[in-house]
């Protein structure tokens, strides 16, 4: 417990927030962490969202997507990073590749299961009213499935933010640096400080996304989720009568 206090003291030492010779400030490390996260997240979104929409809209290719997603879960991140850094050299590229590989499965699953959660009858009705496929996608499927889509985005973001920590092991910086460096130097206060910073960052981002999720999810989808599940005859859990459960069930 004493170490936790020492870790906190390390974080609140003013000199650790200033970049000087042989010392990179905490804020710079946070910046690096967000930089890796942001770039990878952007690429992940650009790849996973179109594919997910295509799978969810057409219902084709889901089997392959699931197999690939599950297989990618078995890949050990640390090893993948090592191979890529040995292959293409140290820098943003190997980290980004690994992070994108990790980020795609949750986002992809969120997007296509979001679209699939939309009641078929609603889509048929939209089509009968003369909506084009694109209109159905943009005006019906995406809004109604948005809760799951955003859930996938949140999961992908956290996956990426957590994994950036490992990049520090290969001297790529980010907040994991203090953790890895402190460990290597037997400087336990620094190591604990690194762990605290990484944990706080992950929890803070998750908290912010949770709040955003509450606001951006279109209000209609929540009330109708229950009716949709009942109407479909899908197993509706006995406790699902509460709105909380459906909200959490992203």
């Amino acid at each position, binding site marked *: *417990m004493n*170490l*936790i206090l020492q870790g906190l003291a390390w974080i609140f030492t003013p000199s650790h927030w200033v970049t000087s010779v042989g010392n990179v400030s905490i804020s710079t490390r946070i910046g690096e962490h967000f930089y890796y996260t942001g770039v990878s997240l952007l690429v992940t979104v650009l790849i996973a969202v179109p594919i997910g929409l295509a799978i969810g809209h057409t219902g084709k290719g889901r089997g392959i997507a699931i197999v690939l997603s599950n*297989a990618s*879960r*078995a*890949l*050990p*991140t*640390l*090893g*993948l990073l*090592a*191979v890529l850094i*040995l*292959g293409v050299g140290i820098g943003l590229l190997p980290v980004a590749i690994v992070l994108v590989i*990790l980020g795609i*499965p949750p986002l992809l*699953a*969120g997007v296509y*299961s979001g679209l*699939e*959660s939309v009641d078929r009858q609603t889509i048929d009705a939209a089509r009968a009213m003369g909506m084009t496929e694109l209109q159905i996608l943009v005006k019906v499927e995406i809004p109604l499935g948005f809760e*799951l889509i955003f*859930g*996938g985005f949140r*999961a992908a973001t*956290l*996956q990426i*933010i*957590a*994994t950036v*920590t*490992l990049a520090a*092991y290969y001297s790529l910086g980010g907040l*994991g640096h203090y*953790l890895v460096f402190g*460990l290597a130097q037997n400087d336990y206060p620094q*190591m*604990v400080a*690194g*762990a*605290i910073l*990484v*944990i706080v960052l*992950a*929890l803070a981002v*998750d908290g912010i996304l949770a709040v955003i999720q509450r606001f951006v999810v279109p209000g209609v989808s929540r009330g109708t989720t229950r009716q949709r599940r009942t109407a479909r005859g*899908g*197993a509706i*859990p*006995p*406790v*699902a009568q*509460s709105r*909380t*459960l459906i909200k*959490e*069930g*992203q």
Partner: protein
Amino acid sequence: MNWVWTNFDMIWGLTLSQIWLSVIPIVVGFLLSIPLGYAASRSKAARSILLSAGGILYTIPSLALFVSIPVVIGTSLLDPTNVVIALTIYSVAIMVRSSADAFASVPEPVQDSATAVGFSGWQRFFAVELPLAGPVLLAGIRVVSVSTVSLVSVGSVIGVSSLGFLFTDGFQRNFFTEVWTGIIGTVIIAAVFDLLLVLIGRLAMPWNRRVSDRKLRRVASRSAVPVS
């Protein structure tokens, strides 16, 4: 390839420790998640507390959790127990949601009829609810198994030996073969574990009730992804 044969003993040793380090969290996580998930399926308050706690724990990056365990419980930093405890925390955190969903998926009329024909609470749980929750539980534990196996290797950063040692060592020696051996070994272990779980599922649920694809898919898309 030569390298693999000459170092086979070392690789086999690392494989065994990787297996041990992952089997314990998978089994313990599964066992713990059953009562927790059951409680979560019975009470709204329990559900919201357990699932939020699970969500928060699972958000913590693995490396940070690995070094936090000794700080909190006072074990030595190099103790493999730290990795086992950390991975058990993750597996419970992921599994409790699957388990809650699994028990919630047992239709209420079925539970009521079990009570009506005279099952006591415990009988009903073991003879009716648990078997019917089985397929969703299986889907959940398969996710836990794969992610646990691949996370064990992160332990090598804090000096807990597993196939992850091949990553750190191979990287320092700039030796591709060694790193690849570790990756392939990890994937093989994950695949074998998955196969075993499916087999156990077949044996334990011989009626082979096919849960609708949709239900499993919902669980799969919802269940947590491994945190690295």
